[in-house]
């Protein structure tokens, strides 16, 4: 007899931590992006997607709104805006 001792890789994706956000969320202006990839590289959630200029975005189902991406963007092309704003 066994019980839950082990888990297949990456099953945490079931946990949508985007619900944690209360104040701010990142808005990708997608105007001056140079595809440096830094936002994607440093996101603590690893939830940023994109490969081409002005095509990066954060997956809001997981984004906790920490604001690190906005801080690191060399072109200031990410803004932290109120979470309940469209």
């Amino acid at each position: 007899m066994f019980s839950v001792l082990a888990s297949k890789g990456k099953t945490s994706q079931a946990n949508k931590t985007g619900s944690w956000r209360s104040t701010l969320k990142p808005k990708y202006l997608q105007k001056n992006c140079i595809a440096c990839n830094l936002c994607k590289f440093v996101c603590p959630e690893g939830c940023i997607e994109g490969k081409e200029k002005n095509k990066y975005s954060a997956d809001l189902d997981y984004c906790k709104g920490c604001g690190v991406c906005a801080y690191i963007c060399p072109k200031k092309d990410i803004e932290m805006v109120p979470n309940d704003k469209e």
Partner: protein
Amino acid sequence: MKKFIEGSWAMADAAKMCRPQVVAAYPITPQTHIVEHLAEFVANGELKAESVNVESEHSAASAVLGAQIAGVRTFTCTSSQGLLLMGEVVFCIAGMRLPVMMICANRAISAPINIWNDQQDSISLRDAGWIQVYAENNQEAVDLVIAGYKIGENAKIMLPIMVCVDGFILTHGMETVDMPDQELVDKFLPPYDPPYKLDVNNPISFGLLGDPTVYLENRYALHKTLEEVLTLLPKVGAEYKQLTGRDSVKLVEEYKTADADTILVAMGSVCGSIKDVIDMERQKGNKVGLLKIVCYRPFPKEAIKKVLDKAQYIGIVDKDISLGAEGALYTEIKALADSNKKVSGFVAGLGGRDITVKSIQTIIESTKKEVNRCKFIDLKQELLWDEFKVA
């Protein structure tokens, strides 16, 4: 092939034939000869394995945990302080369902420091979830190691095994042992093929955080699986008997109990001495018998009860004590005996104090005459003082 060898050699040879691929070693008397022999086997190519000299017993147990979860058969060995030091890892290995094999060369626990035999060490970890078996002699030790691997590695079981051997008495004793040959062991024990392991082609996370929503079921599963060993062990024992002719792998053993009015209960090498005394007593018309416990965990309640029912007087010999209460074996056996039996508990042999013919005769006599919950045998009154004084 029959060999007249030191117990450690026989046990190391048995382990070698089971083809462990990682052996973790840390010295502590009296198990050290076992890991030394294994290191020799590896050094001269007789055993294709990694023998790692870790920096403590905690790391020895951790290393075999890592090797086992990475998919190979392992072996380690310790005693007393070493076993206690690896205590948390011992619990963890069982909880993680890894069939690690360990020989525990039973030795007393500090303080005072004492390198001689009693069974306090392994008994203190009886709750950890390991299969625990006790060998009476070196033949049994060899057979229990080989069979132990097979039982623990069963895909439905996947539990670690502790083969307990009385330190010095068995490890350093010279006995004739019938060593099976490699071919027989290979036939009996197939290569280790676990249902789960670390694998880059199948990435799994092991050792998850088990919060209150899942922990209980994990422990229940462990408990139930240990109980299943009560069925599996005799089956494997029967298979082993077919191949070797030997009956070493069983839950309990009865010696002259059929018509006994007094039955002693014990584990380990003292059983050999008790059998000799029983033969002597039988000459005098004394109807004494022995119930030897081989498999201590899981606890074979039914097998034990059947034997206890036969006699009126039951004397339990503990080479350990749950301080402030009584001997561990006594507590568990007493609970099984019918209320009309006269059940006595004896503590003997702690710290290597010899259990002699006289000691055993005293135990038999006392069992018939009176009822004691926790009677220490061979106590030296002159060493018991009311106040602390420096010797």
